[in-house]
């Protein structure tokens, strides 16, 4: 297990290293000049040169990459071109909002997806199954931002017009300040993030469970006189969990995209919002920092999933 784990961690670090390198050199070959952007449209060439020197952009590329790398290992991601704040600080400051959104989103996706998947699989061909299939197809087809806008329209606007105000349109209240308000502000965003992923899980659970329920050991369990609930949840679901866990790691990267869009729609000031703002003002260090942080999460998630996988399925450990 330790060998398995250390191998996964090393390959994760290599991936992060590769991504940081790709990002850095992509920005180096990019046609736009950050110094000119920062100095403003009316700046003279002298001023632009000054800015370039101040930011260390005049150094040879390999030296810049070295500074970037050594900084990275010390947890220093550089300073924002825009407001000169350390990149790491502004990322960490916005982390709670993004993390609240992501965690809730995953939970909504899993609960909704697994429930619908099991419901559909227990009675294949019935109206419950058809309803589940409709949910899956809608979920797979609707873009996250459309889902968010429609939720906002129906649950915020239409309800408010009808005189029932419960869901706020936007904003974020820290958990430490008021947990209830925190949840109330995040319900709609959670469902926005979770909806698309829930469809993927529902489809996966349904197809896997339907085929598992046709296995001989399920027949045996039933003929022992076990209750149907026990057969489904204990015997059936055990074999469905492994593919579901694998899917979580694949979805994590997609989920990140959902966060960016959802933050923008619901006015949540998280990392995704920061990334878009930074793109709009050409703030390279922040863009690179946000990318690296997101990649770090993806890598960590995939390692955690691999561990869970190894715990669920002993065959993986042996290999």
């Amino acid at each position, binding site marked *: 297990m330790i060998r398995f784990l250390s191998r996964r961690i090393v390959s994760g670090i290599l991936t992060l290293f590769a991504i940081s390198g790709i990002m850095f050199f992509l920005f180096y070959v990019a046609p736009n000049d950050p110094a000119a952007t920062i100095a403003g449209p009316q700046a003279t060439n002298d001023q632009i040169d000054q800015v370039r020197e101040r930011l260390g952009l005049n150094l040879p590329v390999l030296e810049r990459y070295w500074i970037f790398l050594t900084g990275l290992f010390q947890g220093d991601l550089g300073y924002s071109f825009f407001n000169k704040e350390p990149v790491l600080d502004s990322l960490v400051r916005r982390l709670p909002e993004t993390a609240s959104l992501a965690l809730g989103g995953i939970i909504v996706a899993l609960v909704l997806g697994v429930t619908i998947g099991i419901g559909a699989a227990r009675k294949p061909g019935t109206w419950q199954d058809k309803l589940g299939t409709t949910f899956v197809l809608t979920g797979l*087809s609707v873009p996250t931002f459309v889902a968010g806008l429609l939720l906002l329209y129906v649950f915020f606007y239409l309800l408010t017009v009808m005189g029932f105000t419960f869901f706020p349109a936007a904003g974020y209240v820290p958990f430490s300040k008021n947990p209830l308000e925190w949840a109330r502000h995040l319900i709609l965003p959670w469902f926005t993030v979770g909806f698309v992923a829930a469809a993927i899980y529902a489809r996966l659970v349904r197809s896997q469970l339907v085929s598992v329920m046709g296995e001989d050991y399920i027949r045996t369990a039933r003929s022992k006189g076990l209750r149907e609930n026990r057969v489904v949840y204990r015997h059936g679901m055990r074999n469905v969990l492994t593919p579901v866990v694998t899917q979580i790691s694949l979805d994590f990267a997609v989920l990140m995209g959902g966060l960016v869009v959802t933050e923008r729609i619901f006015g949540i000031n998280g990392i995704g919002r920061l990334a878009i703002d930074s793109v709009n003002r050409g703030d390279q260090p922040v863009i690179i920092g946000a990318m690296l942080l997101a990649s770090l999460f993806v890598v960590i998630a995939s390692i955690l999933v691999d561990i869970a996988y190894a715990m669920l399925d002993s065959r993986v450990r042996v290999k």
Partner: protein
Amino acid sequence: MMPESTLSSGTEADLDNDIPAKKGHPHKEIVARSPLQLVWTRLRQDPTAMVSAAVIVLVIISALAAPLIASWVGHGPDEQFRKEGLTPSGLPTGPSQEFPLGADNLGRDLFVRLIYGGQLSLIVAFVATVGALGIGTLVGMTAGFMRGKVDTVLTWLMDTTLSLPQLLFAISLVSLVGPSFGTTVIVIILFSWAPIARVVRGQTLSIREREFVEAARSLGASNWRIMRVDVLPNLIVPILVYGTLLIPQAIVFEATLSFLGLGVLPPTATWGNMLAAASTGSMYTVAWWMLVFPSAALLSVTLAFNLLGDSVRDALDPRQTLFARKRRIRKNGLAS
């Protein structure tokens, strides 16, 4: 996802069609149906597939006829009608005879813009899908056929691409070169080729062990020739299925980028930036049509493509969906 009952009734219907034909014309030659005809027969008996296809054809026709429709309505896609389309206080007017689906915040005709947006969506999706299929097939086939070190490197590339936070990476790429039509297409291709490459690689791995490949090699065929002549035709089915499922993904990707203001830029109409206009300043609270119609268009087109893709997959290989999965699981255990 076609219900199993539809398929079995489909085969019965086939038989029914055949028998009276033979009775009526005893001398009629029995002609073998080509695989394509079989697929077409199955698809025609699937109502979901036919409805989805009808929706798609409708959108394609309206996209092709966009200039005609615009001149018929008398409103250009980017033309602003501040007098007719906006109320005195500057708010857009709702659906009326003049503006069938209402006007937007700048007094432009939503109906005409919706059709032009559809045109753009289809073009972006089509170009990106063809590009992604081309690259994915080439990379996957090379990896599966060459094996060894080439395979290791290419597989690592696929896995890394798949594990990247796509949208974040996409927006940082857009920040490098600036948003435009070309950037959008390239970004979509960049994040769509890997799943195809993975599927193609898996198929190639098994195809290259078949006898006909060995025969071709013993005749002195080069690697490139074997890949082109012997392997590629056997990959058409998965490529076709993935292609139809890739189109809605590309449409969604384009719409998302445009919504964030990082795709195709206004004033060019896209469904994404039309929805962005509806969302900025909560415009949708005074003009529901700005939100509802583009959402409905986007949703129905992606839904139609997804449904059609599922049906095409079932029609191309009905056994795969019904029996093969179960058998495969029995044989190899769930891990496969």
